[in-house]
């Protein structure tokens, strides 16, 4: 049973924003994460604001500068199957195809996916931890096999659950956020908040703000991309470890690009150390081995998740090798 709330389905973004400024209002897109959180009492809701009548937020299309605009309400299935995305932003299509199960991909939206709440079992359970406004993290001394190895800031060791956000970071996407004060375009890397900055929020979204679209910049000639995810069960599961790559190769060398880890940190984790090792280099086996080694250099595994260290090394090595072959 869900707690009782009011349900509204506004017909315009402005109206939605008005509703969302009221106390206890929550955005509802596909509802697949929201309903889980409400049922588990992770947070409450006095008003559920369904944005599903906002047709402007649907659709995937090319922008005038040959980038791609993905409406916040595009379903994960639509992202996974879209021709332009498969052609140019392969890593994003691969990330989308790794999300949950087919039913959930039909129902879940890209906006909801990048705004989804952590899956830490204490957080989803009855523990009033720091992230929920309490004063303790139960995972540091508890069952932390699915928690992070980077970026906990000694406060909260969740991993960011999304398989899509890492690919969006790899492609340097921007998120359009709309609120009372108007619109802003936030680079997706800056969209996420580390526990050290504010442990009670995952994103920079303020009350009354919604994500309306995601903008992918035009693809640079020579870009190769991929997303790799390791999980415990094949049917559906969140990432134990994952890596999104978007690298620009020219004349056999990596000219630029990004390496982003999932299942690693409270936010999609850009591995600047790996990027430094490979940029300007040929992707030969020596460089790849060194990249994989450095990726986990400053990791801080917890009591039960040091298995992630060899896992990350292995998938980074494998994925870089695949990218090198093309």
């Amino acid at each position, binding site marked *: 049973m869900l707690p*009782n709330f009011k*349900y509204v*389905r506004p017909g315009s973004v402005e109206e939605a924003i008005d509703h969302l400024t009221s106390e206890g209002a929550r955005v509802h897109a596909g*509802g697949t994460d929201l*309903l889980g959180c409400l049922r588990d009492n992770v947070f409450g809701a006095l008003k559920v604001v369904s944005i599903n009548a906002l047709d402007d937020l649907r659709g995937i299309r090319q922008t005038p500068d040959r980038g791609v605009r993905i409406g916040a309400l595009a379903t994960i299935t639509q992202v996974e199957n879209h021709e332009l995305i498969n052609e140019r932003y392969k890593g994003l299509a691969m990330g989308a195809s790794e999300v949950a*199960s087919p*039913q959930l991909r*039909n*129902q879940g939206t890209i906006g909801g996916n990048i705004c989804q709440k952590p899956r830490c079992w204490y957080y989803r359970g009855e523990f009033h931890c720091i992230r929920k406004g309490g004063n303790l993290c139960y995972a540091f001394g508890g069952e932390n096999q699915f928690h992070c190895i980077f970026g906990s800031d000694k406060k909260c060791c969740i991993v960011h659950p999304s398989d899509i956000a890492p690919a969006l970071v790899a492609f340097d996407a921007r998120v359009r956020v709309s609120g009372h004060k108007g619109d802003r375009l936030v680079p997706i890397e800056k969209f996420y908040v580390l526990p050290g900055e504010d442990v009670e929020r995952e994103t920079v979204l303020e009350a009354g703000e919604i994500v309306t679209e995601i903008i992918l910049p035009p693809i640079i000639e020579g870009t190769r991309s991929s997303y790799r995810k390791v999980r415990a069960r094949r049917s559906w599961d969140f990432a134990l470890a994952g890596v999104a790559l978007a690298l620009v190769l020219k004349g056999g060398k990596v000219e630029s690009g990004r390496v982003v880890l999932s299942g690693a940190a409270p936010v999609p984790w850009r591995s600047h150390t790996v990027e430094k090792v490979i940029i300007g280099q040929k992707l030969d086996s020596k460089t790849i081995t060194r990249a994989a080694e450095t990726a986990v250099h400053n990791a801080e595994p917890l009591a039960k998740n040091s298995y992630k260290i060899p896992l990350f090394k292995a998938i980074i090595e494998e994925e870089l090798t695949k990218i090198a072959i093309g």
Partner: protein
Amino acid sequence: MKKQLLSMNVNDETIEVAVEASASLLEVLRDELGYIGVKEGCSEGACGACTVLMDGRPVRSCLTLALEAEGSSITTIEGLASGGQLHPIQQAFVDRGAVQCGFCTPGMILSAKALLDHNPNPSDEEIKDALAGNFCRCTGYAKILDAVCSLRPASSSKPGR
């Protein structure tokens, strides 16, 4: 709180029902309207027992607010058989021994239907992918796969591995 009026089409029948804003589609279909073929397993989106088709697409009815179904067409397992005849997918499940306790069966069949409706000749891989969100505790999946494979045109009766 005041109930809100929901109007939707269930198995080709137009239905109007007053629901709580917080009621899930699963609760309304099962408890208010008596479609008990819609099963409640995990209530958290994991098991697929609550799968129904919404405008032809399989969704988790446990993670869908009933009011979100406004204006849409819902198919539950009750809508498949017609004139006392089982739907071919149902018949194949029976013939191939793909039903044991039966709890997963409605969701499994509806996911299979959504697949076969838009892809009548799926590969083994495509079948496994389409059913990946439906858990079965009894059959070990082999016979379910067998049943769906048998529905492909000119199917050989054995699923490939």
